[in-house]
């Protein structure tokens, strides 16, 4: 099998994982912030 496929796969996976992880962190932060605001409003 052509080794270029492995190189491409490695870089695509790296981009997906590292950018995806950033997206996941920011999304989780938004959800937690929204939940906290909701709690403060319901006080």
């Amino acid at each position: 099998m052509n080794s270029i496929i492995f190189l491409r796969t490695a870089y695509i996976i790296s981009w997906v994982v590292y950018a995806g992880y950033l997206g996941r962190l920011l999304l989780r932060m938004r959800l937690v912030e929204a939940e906290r605001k909701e709690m403060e409003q319901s006080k």
Partner: protein
Amino acid sequence: MKKLALISIPLVLILLGLTSYLNLAVAPTEATMGDVQRIFYYHVASGWVGMFCFFVNFVASIWYLWKRSPQSDALAAASAEVGVVFCAMLLLLGTLWARPVWGIWWTWDARLTTTLVLWLIYVSYLILRRFSTSGQTQVLAAAFAVFGFADVPIVYMSIRWFRTQHPSPVIGGGPDSGLAPAIMQTLLINVAAFTLLGLVYIWLSYKLQREEQALEAAHAQAALRGAA
């Protein structure tokens, strides 16, 4: 939140874009392995950041056991999570390099096995934090992390102590070790960029952990008010 996204998204994209460009378009092609050697830059940089994160987790865990500060607990949790991501990438990129170069995806040699065990230790740490219902979860996790870190020096030394399929150390490996200057320069830029990437993730994950702690405290207070 918007400010964090405005800083972190472009920074991460620039770091990934810059390193990808350097590794794929600027760095010279290695004579023996050819283009597939370019995986090495992300593989080593991910490994370095993973180990750095586990070291931060180790120090923060000791600090938590000593001072019981919620900040150090949040830092320990954040660094372990980021470390697991980078260590997973280390293993994954290693297998993608091994298949065309060795002809196999995986072998149970000392370096690969101890690294897999290391990853499993920190996955267990995160599972413990997530699912333990004990009131002492943070203390248990911190003690677990202190013992878990013992595998990091074993991973580092494994290619020195044992004869392995994994290549010998290229940095600090004795008189026969070393890299061509252009490859070394590219590697160092990758290591610096990934260190910054790791710090951005730790910072974001720390902020998230602190938010979650505040939310948990608010829930506990609300429950107390309801019970009163």
